[in-house]
Each structure stands twice: as C-alpha cells, then as structure tokens.
C-alpha cells in the first residue's frame, strides 16, 4: 500500500482555496478557526437542557423508557449487584455477566448477588449479557456516553443481546455539550478513547415495511442502573 498521498491532499486543498478565493497564509482565517477550536462555541441550548436536576432526571428516565430501554433506580452503588440479579431473574435471562476491568464495577459487593457468574474481558459471540459503566449522560434525549477501553470494552455495548449500564446520577447533565465535557473530564487531558459511544436505546431498525423492530444487530434489551 502506498503511503498517504500528500500530493493529492495538496491538490485538493489548493482547489478548495481557489474556489473560496483565499490564500494559504491568511492569518485572519487561521486565527478565527483556531479560536473556534479553542473556545468551542455552542449552538443555542434548548430549554429542555436547562431544567432543575429533578426535572432532568425525570426527562432522562422518560426518554429511555419511551425508547424501549429500562431504567432501574438504585440508592447506592452497593445495591447494583442485587439489582442486576433481580433484573436477570425477572426477565428470565442467564445469570452470567460479561464485563471489563472497570474498578467501579469489579469493586462492587458481588457477594450480595449469589449465583451470579461474572466473566472478564471483551464480548464473545456466545455472551448473552454484558455490563458497562457510563462516563456521563445527557437527559435531553436519554443519552448515555461510554468510552471504549479495557475498563469497558466496546464490544460489550453491541454484541450481547442484553446490555446493562451503570450510571452515577452525579454525571447526568442536561445537554450533549455538558455531558461531553463531563465525559472528557474523566479522560486524560486532550485524549480521546478509540470510541466514544452515545447510546440512547437498544438497537432497532425500520428497514422492512417501515415497521420498527428492536434488536437489529446490537442489543435487543438495554437496562440502565441509575445510582444515587
């Protein structure tokens, strides 16, 4: 394979500049664009992103529930293993959960969920249930933000039929922009994970006869454990 073709790039960018009637060394344009990437101006925020914490919480739960996801409220992190075990029993799913190495999850009191088997690592095709921890969420559309990595491998979010996500209510923001700020604050400065996944419901399709069916390729079931 040839190395990235800088000659082609230069020709394309030269054509762009010719069409725009600008020159490469235009300092004002450079300053203007650099400023945008530094100050990151936002487009107008919808009123629904600026509500009180209680309203945002209700909005978040409402969106996910209407989008065919389940939201299970848990008072504290210690209650998550029991919550998971109860959910799996109630929905008749296998008591075997695949998860990554996120210490917020591995450190939970799993002894409280007797009989629940935990396996570590990326999702394998035979896995039926996976568990991830979200970085943040936006209530405006019930959107979770997850980052890929050894803590929460990205395949957990897409391969198994059931995806369980733990979200701390303290990182539930109103709009996408605030949620992304919270998510990026949880990562090393200036870095991005391989994937940042915004998830707002289980997988779906309307490609056959315009009728919506859940569980197209990704999870058929999404359950969010909202902690605190």
């Amino acid at each position: 394979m040839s190395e990235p073709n800088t000659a082609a790039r230069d020709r394309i960018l030269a054509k762009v500049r010719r069409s725009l009637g600008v020159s490469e060394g235009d300092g004002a344009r450079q300053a203007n664009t650099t400023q945008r990437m530094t100050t990151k101006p936002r487009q107008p925020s919808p009123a629904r992103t600026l509500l009180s914490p209680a309203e945002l919480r209700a909005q978040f739960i409402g969106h996910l529930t209407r989008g065919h996801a389940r939201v299970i409220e848990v008072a504290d992190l210690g209650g998550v293993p029991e919550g998971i075990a109860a959910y799996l029993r109630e929905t008749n799913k296998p008591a075997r959960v695949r998860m990554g190495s996120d210490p917020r999850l591995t450190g939970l009191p799993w002894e409280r969920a007797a009989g629940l088997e935990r396996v570590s690592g990326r999702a394998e095709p035979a896995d039926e249930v996976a568990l991830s921890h979200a970085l943040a969420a936006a209530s405006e559309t019930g959107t979770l933000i997850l980052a890929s990595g050894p803590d929460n491998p990205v395949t957990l979010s897409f391969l198994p039929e059931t995806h369980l996500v733990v979200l701390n209510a303290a990182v539930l923001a109103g709009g996408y922009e605030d949620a992304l700020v919270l998510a990026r604050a949880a990562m090393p400065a200036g870095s991005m994970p391989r994937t940042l996944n915004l998830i707002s419901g289980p997988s779906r399709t309307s490609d056959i006869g315009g009728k919506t069916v859940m569980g197209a390729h990704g999870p058929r079931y999404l359950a969010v454990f909202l902690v605190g």
Partner: protein
Amino acid sequence: MTPTSAEFKTNARAALADPQLQRALSGLPGGLVAQRTAAKAGLPEFEDLRTAGRDVKNHMLANLDIYLARYEEQATANGAHVHWAETASDAREIILAICQQANAKLVTKGKSMVSEEVGLNAHLEAAGLKVVETDLGEYLVQIRNEHPSHIIVPALHLTEGQVEDEFRRQHTHLAADRPLPDPASMVAEARAVMRENYIKADVGITGANFLIAETGSSVIVTNEGNGDLTQSLARVHIVITSIEKVMATLEDVAGILRLLARSATGQDITNYVTISTGPKRAADPDGPEAYHVVIVDNGRSELLGTEFRDVLRCIRCGACMNHCPVYGAVGGHAYGWVYPGPIGAVLTPAQLGVKAAGHLPNASTFCGACAAVCPVKIPLPDLMRKWRQREFIQGGQGFVARRALAAWGFVARRPRLYHVATRFAALGLSALSGGRGAFSYLPGATGWTRHRDLAAPQSRTFQQLWAEQQRGIAPDV
C-alpha cells in the same frame, strides 16, 4: 452503478405503473413525514437550530481547507492513516490497496452513500473480495442486485412480502417452510446471518456523518448498531467520507445532532452515535488494529466555487425526499443515480453533467417543501432553477419547449405587451371553457388534460384585479 438519470421520464412512467412500488411509497406520509412533524413539535427551538445549523455549516465550508488540514494532523497524531482521493477511481484504488495489504477476503460494510457514489462494492468484488452490506436495508438491496432508493431507508421501495420472498430465495441454508410472518421474524433471521459475517470479516468499512478537526475523529450515526460491529470486530477499519463532512469541534457536531435524526426519522436522536479516533489502543481488548480514513473530493472542491456551494451544507438526512411530491410518486430509482429527490436533482447535474441529468431539476413542482424542511436551509428550488437555466443555455430541452420558453421570455420582458396578451388570453380561455371553469381537453395542453382538468382563467387577470383593489374597488370574484 450506471446512471440512468437521462431516462428519468421513462423511469418515472414505469415507477408509476408499478403496484408494489406504489404500495411501498404509500407509507411515507404517515411514517417519516408525520414522525418528523411530531419531533419538531417536541423541540420549540427547532427553527432557531436550523438557522444556527446553516450558519455553522457555512462557516465550515468557508474554512474547509484549514479544518481538513487540522483534521488530518489530529487524526494522524492519534494513529489514523489519512488518504486523499481526488476522484471516484482514486477512492476505489486506495481502498482496494488497503484490503489487499491486509490480505482481506471478507469485507463487511456499514452504510455509506459516498461508497455508492464511487462504485466501491463492484470494484472490490471484481478483485475477488466478498463484500457484505450490514445495514439491513443495504443488505436487502445488495442481495437483490439493486441500489438504494433512499439515502437513509435504502429499501424503502420494497414491501414486506418482497423481503420475505427474497430471504427465502437467499437464505437456502434455512428450512424452506420456516415461518416468516412479520418484520420481526425477518429481522431475527438477518441478525443471525449477519453475526457470522461480522466475526469472520477481515476489513470493516463504514462511512462518516462527520469528521471532527479538533479531535481527529470520525462520527457515525446509526440505529441498528451494524456500523459498530463492522468497525469493532474486523482487523482493519476503513472510513470512506467526503471533504464537506468536516466540522470544527464536538460542540459543533452536538448542535447538528439535534437536527439530524429529527429531520431524518423523526427520532430525537438515533440510538447510536459513535465517535471513533484511531485504531485500538495498546491496552484495548477489542477494536481494529488499523484505522484508515479515505477523504473523497470527486468534484466537491470545484462545486464549492460555484453558485451551487449551498448544496455542500447537506447533512444527508433525507427530509427533502420524504416531503417531495415527485419523490413520493416515483420513488428513488427513477432518478437514476445515487442521490434521489430534491438533493439529487441538485447534486446529480454537478456529478454527471447537465446533459446526463438535465431532466432531474425539471422534475419538480417548485412547491418548496424541500427547502422548508431542510435542516440546514439549502435553497433547493433556487438551485434547481439555476440548473434549468444552465440546461437551457446549453441547448437542452426539445425544440417546442425552447421556442415556447423563448416566446414567453420575449413577452414577459415587455410589461405592456404582457398585460395586453394575458388579458386577451384570460378572456379567450374563459370564453372557450364555456363557463365550466375548467377544461377536460385543450389542444397543446393534452399532457395535462389527459390526467386531470385544467382550471380555466377567470375573465380578468391578476394585474386587473390588483389595480382595482388598489383603487378601492372590491373584487367581485
């Protein structure tokens, strides 16, 4: 694909006579159109966001060279291989070379209109690779040897019954008498078939709805999750996209996201928005070992310098085609090229030339619905009108139409003559209609009267009525 835009009239006639297609299209108004209306009603700021969306995209286009260069810098720093394709053929060659380098045999592919534009699948298949479309709608058109008829609902032209028949023909490893009573059972079957492909694939190709200059990321927006399995389970992830997709920041993308799904499917947001940056990290247990991004120009850099620049704001939501009475009547295939509907009527002449695509800008009633719903306010009817002018200047249209347009132009530029001529025409036609108010037959207008009545003018012209009203005389019609 081989363009058939020049045969639009023949295509349209066949589409109107196709009962399966007509049944499939009949779901549009109650489906995507009604859902968009409801989603818009749920967000009072929607119109302000459209204005902001237009301005943000205009800013990106005005600084496209800078943001593209910055994107490449950032993406490369994160381990991406960025490739630049000036033409469709360059894009095909670059991607084939990456696949061959990776010793690929099986390629899975998420939805990408740019890949349709450059004819990627046929090229990879000719070189001996197996390519499997993973978006359900794209998979359906692929196994039927068709092309997408809609940019977000590729198999919009198919009915449930046709999908069932196709699955029985295609999935011969399954029992022939298995029940497939509804979309849910067909989706379950496709899900099982596709799992095998994701796991075996060497290369996964996706498109990108956006590139982000600040972070060097590519973004896909999906509902099925197929694009994620495609990119996370293959050894190599290739993104194919085009130059106008670059945005400055995540914040800019966040604003546009509020418009995209609402305009497209009427959802508040699609279930998945995935921001990908580079290949898997050293400690990652999953993800591709290599991440390539192929940025395609294919005429866009030149379009940027023309009166058609606004069309490059397009975020490919499909709202213009959902709301278009012409698209709703004939479907996407009649347009004969990758992008159907009003956006296609403006893009296709730019990509194929006025001669090959000249009919498309004429296939519009200029009702303005497309411009009224466009999330980034592209003035689609104005741009179509500009293509009509170019077609006329280049000698397009038949002899009769050209003479008629020339005659009209002669009269319309001379107000006194125009007033006299229209007064006589109105009186004459009114008298001819014999008080019925409409013609069921009129020589010279049979193209219209064959299908419906042609309203006859009232006895006075608009200008006469206007003048009377200005003088304080109430119109009596």
